[in-house]
């Protein structure tokens, strides 16, 4: 392992944060939970009036600190933030191959894997920092403005699982980037992979519906299930979900690394 690996990761992080796409993550991490907090405040405000009109429905809508933080995480993990991570990853991997800046890194006295690893680590740290911002922006107003369940262990674990899920997603993007030098094609490629996986899951569900139990068992091990494992963490610890995320990260990261080692960078 090269001694300068921490500096390499910081250099990659510096690159990420020096571009507008890099700033989109922290901005979304503030804006999205703020919208959730605001929405929860509006719903909580209406809840009192609703209690008079329809007490049954009103009791079902229970806005407490746990709900605010949990919904902030769900909103953060839906579409926009994954797209930002995908773009940042594509710029750092495929973009650097296409504009040939990768060449100047590969002529330095470090093993090839460490170049990929430093890029991967930088985007993963970036995703973690964005998650931390989301957590804090959601948590502080949730505790100050809402009453009720303050036990946040489960949802906090959900944030940790989301980070792992982000890392696995970044590994998918990195692997796709070893097949193309175009940022646009890398983004399209990852979207195609995700749609393909969704279609495969749909097909397995249909097969399971017709009584084939193997399809149901296979479904549990599909990558999409692992990527969405964070949903299961807001209520209880899920060791298989956690294990699948880690496994996916190792397999995809390893595959990206193996391909990168053999890739010509003219």
């Amino acid at each position: 392992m090269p001694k300068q690996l921490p500096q390499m990761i910081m250099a990659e992080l510096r690159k990420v944060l020096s571009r507008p796409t890099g700033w989109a993550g922290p901005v979304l991490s503030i804006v999205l939970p703020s919208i959730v907090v605001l929405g929860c405040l509006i719903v909580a405000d209406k809840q009192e009036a609703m209690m008079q009109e329809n007490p049954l429905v009103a009791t079902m809508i229970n806005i407490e600190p746990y709900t605010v933080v949990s919904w902030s995480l769900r909103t953060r993990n839906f579409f926009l933030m994954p797209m930002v991570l995908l773009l940042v990853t594509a710029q750092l991997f495929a973009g650097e191959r296409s504009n040939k800046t990768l060449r100047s890194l590969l002529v330095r006295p470090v093993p090839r894997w460490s170049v990929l690893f430093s890029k991967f680590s930088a985007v993963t740290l970036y995703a973690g920092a964005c998650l931390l911002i989301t957590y804090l922006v959601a948590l502080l107003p949730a505790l100050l403005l809402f009453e009720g369940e303050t036990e946040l262990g489960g949802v906090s674990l959900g944030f940790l699982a989301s980070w792992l899920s982000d890392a696995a997603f970044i590994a998918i993007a990195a692997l796709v980037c070893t097949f193309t030098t175009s940022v646009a094609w890398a983004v399209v490629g990852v979207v195609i992979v995700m749609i393909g996986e969704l279609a495969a899951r749909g097909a397995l569900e249909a097969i399971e519906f017709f009584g084939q139990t193997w399809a149901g068992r296979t479904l549990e091990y599909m990558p999409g299930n692992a990527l969405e494992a964070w949903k299961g963490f807001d209520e209880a610890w899920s060791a298989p979900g956690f294990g699948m995320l880690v496994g996916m990260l190792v397999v995809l990261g390893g595959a990206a690394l193996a391909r990168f080692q053999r890739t010509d960078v003219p």
Partner: protein
Amino acid sequence: MTTALEVRGLRRTYGSRVAVDSLDLEVTEGSVYGFLGPNGAGKTTAMRCILRLIRPDAGHVAIFGDTDPVQQRRHVGALIETPRFYEWMSGKDNLDIACAYAGLNAKDVVPEALMRVGLQDRGDDKVKGYSLGMKQRLGIARALLGKPKLLLLDEPTNGLDPQGMKDVRDLIASLAADQDVTIFISSHLLYEVQAVATRVGIIRKGHLVAEGEVEELIAGGDELEVEVGSPELPKLREAIDAISGAEWAGAGADRRQVVKLTHIDVPTFNRQLVEHGVPVAELVGRGRTLEDLFLELVGGTEI
């Protein structure tokens, strides 16, 4: 003499096309090695293979005796074709990133590197505002980070104005002379290579077709060429025909006549012209250039 770069049997193919084939090179420490060849001859492919940017199909590369690519790169600074940068960042930031990968303290080395290529006043400007020549200088500054013992330069004067070209030539000469840096330079500007290189290798269709010391290669055996100027042109032509070992080879610059001399030296030829009653106004030696040699070997292929 220590061998700085040793290449043996290097081969790289792209499908059925052989880009580099059985390439053998040896560059001694402290020398400036000119690597020449027409477009598509395999120069850049060979340099990329040496740096392991692309994987050779076969062959062995050793740099200062090291065969491990990571260890090799500790000794090497490289500029391959037009250097590319993170355009939205400053020149200094770009060098900082290179330092992070090289394990160097940027504060110690970046100002000196910028100074060396005359960019000390523009280091904080964004690279997207740099001219092609400035980018080339910044590329050279990046290659010089960490004081490499071997510098691989692929067309280092691309995009530079005449003054910039001269500066790079001077820089190469000073690096080789004062700091004992071994330089492996590829360029299509042959006069430029002739001005700085001590040894050259000429590659054609992936094969090394000539290699040797520049002076030896251009010495060209027993044949000499001179240009003779005289106000009495017909008399001069008659005398040339009469002198044994001299052969008229055409008109030269400024109404001078080009004469090939075989087995006759210049003072003897001059004396015989005078003996034939030719008033010699000027007699200029025409040395064989690297370009002449190059054109002979590659058959006038475009370079």
